[in-house]
Protein backbone atom coordinates (compact mmCIF):
# COMPACT_ATOMS: atom_id res chain seq x y z
CA UNK A 1 0.00 0.00 0.00
CA UNK A 2 2.83 2.33 0.75
CA UNK A 3 4.93 1.33 -2.24
CA UNK A 4 5.96 4.40 -4.12
CA UNK A 5 5.52 3.84 -7.83
CA UNK A 6 7.15 7.04 -8.90
CA UNK A 7 9.14 9.53 -6.98
CA UNK A 8 7.72 13.02 -7.05
CA UNK A 9 9.55 15.28 -9.47
CA UNK A 10 11.36 18.09 -7.73
CA UNK A 11 9.26 21.24 -7.52
CA UNK A 12 5.97 19.46 -7.07
CA UNK A 13 6.30 19.42 -3.30
CA UNK A 14 3.81 22.20 -2.66
CA UNK A 15 0.13 22.85 -2.28
CA UNK A 16 0.07 24.40 -5.75
CA UNK A 17 -1.38 22.99 -8.94
CA UNK A 18 -2.01 24.34 -12.41
CA UNK A 19 -5.41 25.63 -11.35
CA UNK A 20 -4.10 27.55 -8.37
CA UNK A 21 -1.29 29.04 -10.39
CA UNK A 22 -3.78 30.41 -12.92
CA UNK A 23 -5.93 31.66 -10.07
CA UNK A 24 -2.90 33.22 -8.40
CA UNK A 25 -1.93 35.11 -11.55
CA UNK A 26 -5.51 36.32 -11.96
CA UNK A 27 -5.54 37.47 -8.34
CA UNK A 28 -2.32 39.44 -8.79
CA UNK A 29 -3.69 41.04 -11.97
CA UNK A 30 -6.87 41.86 -10.07
CA UNK A 31 -4.96 43.46 -7.22
CA UNK A 32 -2.92 45.51 -9.68
CA UNK A 33 -6.10 46.69 -11.38
CA UNK A 34 -7.57 47.47 -7.98
CA UNK A 35 -4.55 49.59 -7.10
CA UNK A 36 -4.76 51.37 -10.44
CA UNK A 37 -8.45 52.18 -10.17
CA UNK A 38 -8.65 52.60 -6.43
CA UNK A 39 -5.57 54.74 -5.93
CA UNK A 40 -5.11 56.53 -9.26
CA UNK A 41 -8.05 56.66 -11.62
CA UNK A 42 -11.02 57.10 -9.27
CA UNK A 43 -11.73 60.58 -7.98
CA UNK A 44 -11.80 61.56 -4.29
CA UNK A 45 -15.22 61.52 -2.68
CA UNK A 46 -17.08 64.80 -2.33
CA UNK A 47 -17.59 64.47 1.41
CA UNK A 48 -14.96 61.94 2.51
CA UNK A 49 -12.09 63.05 0.28
CA UNK A 50 -9.25 60.60 -0.33
CA UNK A 51 -10.24 58.47 2.66
CA UNK A 52 -12.92 56.82 0.54
CA UNK A 53 -10.13 54.85 -1.14
CA UNK A 54 -9.80 52.78 2.04
CA UNK A 55 -13.27 51.45 1.42
CA UNK A 56 -12.27 49.83 -1.88
CA UNK A 57 -10.27 47.28 0.09
CA UNK A 58 -12.18 47.48 3.36
CA UNK A 59 -15.66 46.64 2.13
CA UNK A 60 -14.70 43.62 -0.04
CA UNK A 61 -12.56 42.27 2.81
CA UNK A 62 -15.54 42.54 5.15
CA UNK A 63 -17.78 40.76 2.67
CA UNK A 64 -15.36 37.88 2.24
CA UNK A 65 -14.77 37.68 5.97
CA UNK A 66 -18.50 37.05 6.31
CA UNK A 67 -18.44 34.56 3.44
CA UNK A 68 -15.66 32.73 5.25
CA UNK A 69 -17.83 32.55 8.37
CA UNK A 70 -20.72 31.15 6.37
CA UNK A 71 -18.45 28.53 4.86
CA UNK A 72 -17.26 27.61 8.33
CA UNK A 73 -20.79 27.13 9.58
CA UNK A 74 -21.86 25.21 6.49
CA UNK A 75 -18.74 23.06 6.59
CA UNK A 76 -19.22 22.32 10.30
CA UNK A 77 -22.85 21.42 9.72
CA UNK A 78 -21.95 19.07 6.87
CA UNK A 79 -19.25 17.49 9.01
CA UNK A 80 -21.60 16.91 11.94
CA UNK A 81 -24.40 15.73 9.69
CA UNK A 82 -22.59 13.69 7.05
CA UNK A 83 -19.29 12.95 8.85
CA UNK A 84 -17.61 14.56 5.86
CA UNK A 85 -13.92 15.17 6.57
CA UNK A 86 -13.73 17.22 3.38
CA UNK A 87 -16.23 19.74 4.69
CA UNK A 88 -14.51 19.83 8.05
CA UNK A 89 -11.34 20.95 6.32
CA UNK A 90 -13.28 23.55 4.36
CA UNK A 91 -14.65 24.85 7.66
CA UNK A 92 -11.20 25.02 9.24
CA UNK A 93 -9.51 26.59 6.22
CA UNK A 94 -12.18 29.24 5.77
CA UNK A 95 -12.25 30.01 9.50
CA UNK A 96 -8.57 30.78 9.47
CA UNK A 97 -8.85 32.94 6.36
CA UNK A 98 -11.92 34.67 7.78
CA UNK A 99 -9.88 35.47 10.89
CA UNK A 100 -7.17 37.13 8.79
CA UNK A 101 -9.79 39.07 6.81
CA UNK A 102 -11.66 40.11 9.95
CA UNK A 103 -8.46 41.41 11.51
CA UNK A 104 -7.76 43.38 8.31
CA UNK A 105 -11.30 44.73 8.33
CA UNK A 106 -10.97 45.86 11.93
CA UNK A 107 -7.66 47.62 11.40
CA UNK A 108 -8.65 49.30 8.13
CA UNK A 109 -11.97 50.27 9.69
CA UNK A 110 -10.15 51.95 12.55
CA UNK A 111 -7.82 53.73 10.13
CA UNK A 112 -10.82 54.89 8.16
CA UNK A 113 -12.52 56.00 11.37
CA UNK A 114 -9.67 58.24 12.51
CA UNK A 115 -10.05 60.93 9.79
CA UNK A 116 -13.80 60.36 9.48
CA UNK A 117 -14.82 60.38 13.13
CA UNK A 118 -11.69 61.89 14.65
CA UNK A 119 -11.02 58.78 16.76
CA UNK A 120 -9.82 55.26 16.03
CA UNK A 121 -12.58 53.57 17.88
CA UNK A 122 -16.20 54.40 18.41
CA UNK A 123 -18.75 52.01 19.84
CA UNK A 124 -20.38 51.81 16.49
CA UNK A 125 -22.57 48.75 15.92
CA UNK A 126 -20.57 47.55 12.93
CA UNK A 127 -17.15 48.00 14.50
CA UNK A 128 -18.19 46.43 17.79
CA UNK A 129 -19.80 43.39 16.24
CA UNK A 130 -16.77 42.87 13.99
CA UNK A 131 -14.58 42.85 17.07
CA UNK A 132 -16.87 40.24 18.65
CA UNK A 133 -16.70 38.22 15.43
CA UNK A 134 -12.91 38.18 15.65
CA UNK A 135 -13.13 36.87 19.21
CA UNK A 136 -15.59 34.15 18.19
CA UNK A 137 -13.29 33.07 15.35
CA UNK A 138 -10.30 33.01 17.68
CA UNK A 139 -12.29 30.73 19.98
CA UNK A 140 -12.98 28.36 17.08
CA UNK A 141 -9.32 28.30 16.05
CA UNK A 142 -8.18 27.81 19.64
CA UNK A 143 -10.25 24.64 19.87
CA UNK A 144 -9.40 23.40 16.38
CA UNK A 145 -5.70 23.71 17.17
CA UNK A 146 -5.80 22.12 20.63
CA UNK A 147 -2.99 19.71 21.29
CA UNK A 148 -5.56 16.94 21.62
CA UNK A 149 -6.88 13.95 19.72
CA UNK A 150 -7.89 14.69 16.12
CA UNK A 151 -11.41 13.45 16.74
CA UNK A 152 -11.80 15.62 19.83
CA UNK A 153 -10.55 18.74 18.06
CA UNK A 154 -12.66 18.37 14.95
CA UNK A 155 -15.86 17.46 16.71
CA UNK A 156 -15.65 20.21 19.30
CA UNK A 157 -14.60 22.89 16.87
CA UNK A 158 -17.38 21.83 14.50
CA UNK A 159 -19.98 22.55 17.17
CA UNK A 160 -18.47 26.00 17.68
CA UNK A 161 -18.35 26.49 13.91
CA UNK A 162 -21.97 25.48 13.58
CA UNK A 163 -22.96 28.12 16.12
CA UNK A 164 -20.71 30.78 14.58
CA UNK A 165 -23.20 32.38 12.20
CA UNK A 166 -26.16 32.24 14.64
CA UNK A 167 -23.90 33.83 17.24
CA UNK A 168 -22.80 36.55 14.83
CA UNK A 169 -26.41 37.31 13.95
CA UNK A 170 -27.48 37.56 17.60
CA UNK A 171 -24.43 39.61 18.54
CA UNK A 172 -25.03 42.01 15.64
CA UNK A 173 -28.68 42.35 16.50
CA UNK A 174 -28.01 43.06 20.14
CA UNK A 175 -25.21 45.51 19.41
CA UNK A 176 -27.39 47.29 16.87
CA UNK A 177 -30.24 47.74 19.36
CA UNK A 178 -27.81 48.72 22.05
CA UNK A 179 -26.32 51.51 19.92
CA UNK A 180 -29.58 52.79 18.49
CA UNK A 181 -30.82 53.36 22.02
CA UNK A 182 -28.09 55.93 22.56
CA UNK A 183 -27.76 56.87 18.95
CA UNK A 184 -25.44 59.53 17.69
CA UNK A 185 -26.87 59.67 14.19
CA UNK A 186 -24.16 61.83 12.67
CA UNK A 187 -21.71 58.96 13.00
CA UNK A 188 -23.66 56.55 10.91
CA UNK A 189 -24.81 58.99 8.24
CA UNK A 190 -21.23 59.41 7.20
CA UNK A 191 -20.72 55.69 7.00
CA UNK A 192 -20.11 53.05 4.42
CA UNK A 193 -23.68 53.13 3.19
CA UNK A 194 -23.23 56.50 1.49
CA UNK A 195 -24.17 56.43 -2.16
CA UNK A 196 -21.37 56.03 -4.66
CA UNK A 197 -21.35 55.84 -8.45
CA UNK A 198 -19.26 56.00 -11.60
CA UNK A 199 -15.58 55.17 -11.37
CA UNK A 200 -15.84 54.91 -7.61
CA UNK A 201 -18.46 52.20 -7.92
CA UNK A 202 -16.32 50.49 -10.55
CA UNK A 203 -13.29 50.57 -8.25
CA UNK A 204 -15.32 48.95 -5.52
CA UNK A 205 -16.45 46.34 -8.03
CA UNK A 206 -12.82 45.61 -8.97
CA UNK A 207 -12.12 45.37 -5.27
CA UNK A 208 -14.73 42.63 -4.86
CA UNK A 209 -13.28 40.67 -7.76
CA UNK A 210 -9.64 41.03 -6.71
CA UNK A 211 -10.24 40.26 -3.04
CA UNK A 212 -12.54 37.41 -4.06
CA UNK A 213 -9.80 35.87 -6.20
CA UNK A 214 -7.34 36.18 -3.33
CA UNK A 215 -9.88 34.57 -1.01
CA UNK A 216 -10.46 31.65 -3.38
CA UNK A 217 -6.75 31.14 -3.95
CA UNK A 218 -6.01 31.23 -0.22
CA UNK A 219 -8.90 28.88 0.52
CA UNK A 220 -7.61 26.22 -1.90
CA UNK A 221 -4.08 26.43 -0.56
CA UNK A 222 -5.16 26.44 3.06
CA UNK A 223 -7.49 23.53 2.44
CA UNK A 224 -4.70 21.49 0.88
CA UNK A 225 -2.39 22.37 3.72
CA UNK A 226 -4.97 21.20 6.26
CA UNK A 227 -5.45 18.03 4.24
CA UNK A 228 -1.72 17.36 4.30
CA UNK A 229 -1.65 17.90 8.05
CA UNK A 230 -4.34 15.26 8.40
CA UNK A 231 -2.48 12.85 6.15
CA UNK A 232 0.55 13.29 8.32
CA UNK A 233 -1.59 12.39 11.32
CA UNK A 234 -2.92 9.25 9.66
CA UNK A 235 0.34 8.13 8.12
CA UNK A 236 1.91 5.16 9.77
CA UNK A 237 -1.22 3.54 11.18
CA UNK A 238 -0.39 0.27 9.41
CA UNK A 239 3.15 0.45 10.69
CA UNK A 240 1.92 1.21 14.19
CA UNK A 241 -0.37 -1.83 14.13
CA UNK A 242 2.47 -4.09 12.99
CA UNK A 243 4.74 -2.70 15.67
CA UNK A 244 2.06 -3.12 18.31
CA UNK A 245 1.58 -6.78 17.37
CA UNK A 246 5.27 -7.49 17.52
CA UNK A 247 5.32 -6.34 21.15
CA UNK A 248 3.60 -9.55 22.15
CA UNK A 249 5.67 -11.83 19.92
CA UNK A 250 7.05 -14.69 22.01
CA UNK A 251 10.80 -14.25 22.04
Amino acid at each position, binding site marked *: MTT*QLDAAPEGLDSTGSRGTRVLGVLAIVGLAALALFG*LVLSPPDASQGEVVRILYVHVPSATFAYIGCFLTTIGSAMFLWRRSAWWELVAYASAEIAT*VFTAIVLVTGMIWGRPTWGVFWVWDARLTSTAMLLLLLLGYLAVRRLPADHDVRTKRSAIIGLLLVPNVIIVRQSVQWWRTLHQKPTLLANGVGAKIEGLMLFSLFIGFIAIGLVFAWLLIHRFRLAWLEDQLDDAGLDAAIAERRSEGEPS
Partner: protein
Amino acid sequence: MSGNWGYVVAAWVIVFGGLGTYSVRTILRGRSISKQVPPEKRRWS
Protein backbone atom coordinates in the same frame (compact mmCIF):
# COMPACT_ATOMS: atom_id res chain seq x y z
CA MET B 1 -9.47 66.53 3.50
CA SER B 2 -6.72 66.15 0.89
CA GLY B 3 -4.13 65.57 3.56
CA ASN B 4 -5.45 62.13 4.34
CA TRP B 5 -3.33 60.12 1.94
CA GLY B 6 -1.37 58.83 4.92
CA TYR B 7 -4.43 56.94 6.17
CA VAL B 8 -5.14 55.56 2.72
CA VAL B 9 -1.58 54.30 2.28
CA ALA B 10 -1.56 52.81 5.77
CA ALA B 11 -4.79 50.93 5.12
CA TRP B 12 -3.67 49.60 1.74
CA VAL B 13 -0.30 48.56 3.12
CA ILE B 14 -2.06 46.66 5.86
CA VAL B 15 -4.36 44.88 3.43
CA PHE B 16 -1.67 43.96 0.93
CA GLY B 17 0.93 43.28 3.59
CA GLY B 18 -1.43 41.22 5.71
CA LEU B 19 -2.70 39.10 2.85
CA GLY B 20 0.82 38.78 1.42
CA THR B 21 2.35 37.64 4.70
CA TYR B 22 -0.42 35.15 5.28
CA SER B 23 -0.14 33.80 1.73
CA VAL B 24 3.61 33.36 1.96
CA ARG B 25 3.28 31.60 5.29
CA THR B 26 0.64 29.25 3.92
CA ILE B 27 2.70 28.43 0.84
CA LEU B 28 5.89 27.83 2.80
CA ARG B 29 4.14 25.62 5.32
CA GLY B 30 2.58 23.75 2.42
CA ARG B 31 5.99 23.16 0.86
CA SER B 32 7.63 21.93 4.04
CA ILE B 33 4.77 19.61 4.94
CA SER B 34 4.39 18.31 1.38
CA LYS B 35 7.83 16.78 1.59
CA GLN B 36 6.70 14.62 4.50
CA VAL B 37 3.64 13.18 2.76
CA PRO B 38 3.98 10.64 -0.05
CA PRO B 39 3.03 12.17 -3.40
CA GLU B 40 0.18 9.73 -4.17
CA LYS B 41 -1.72 11.28 -1.30
CA ARG B 42 -1.52 14.71 -2.91
CA ARG B 43 -4.26 14.34 -5.42
CA TRP B 44 -3.81 17.77 -6.99
CA SER B 45 -0.20 17.46 -8.12
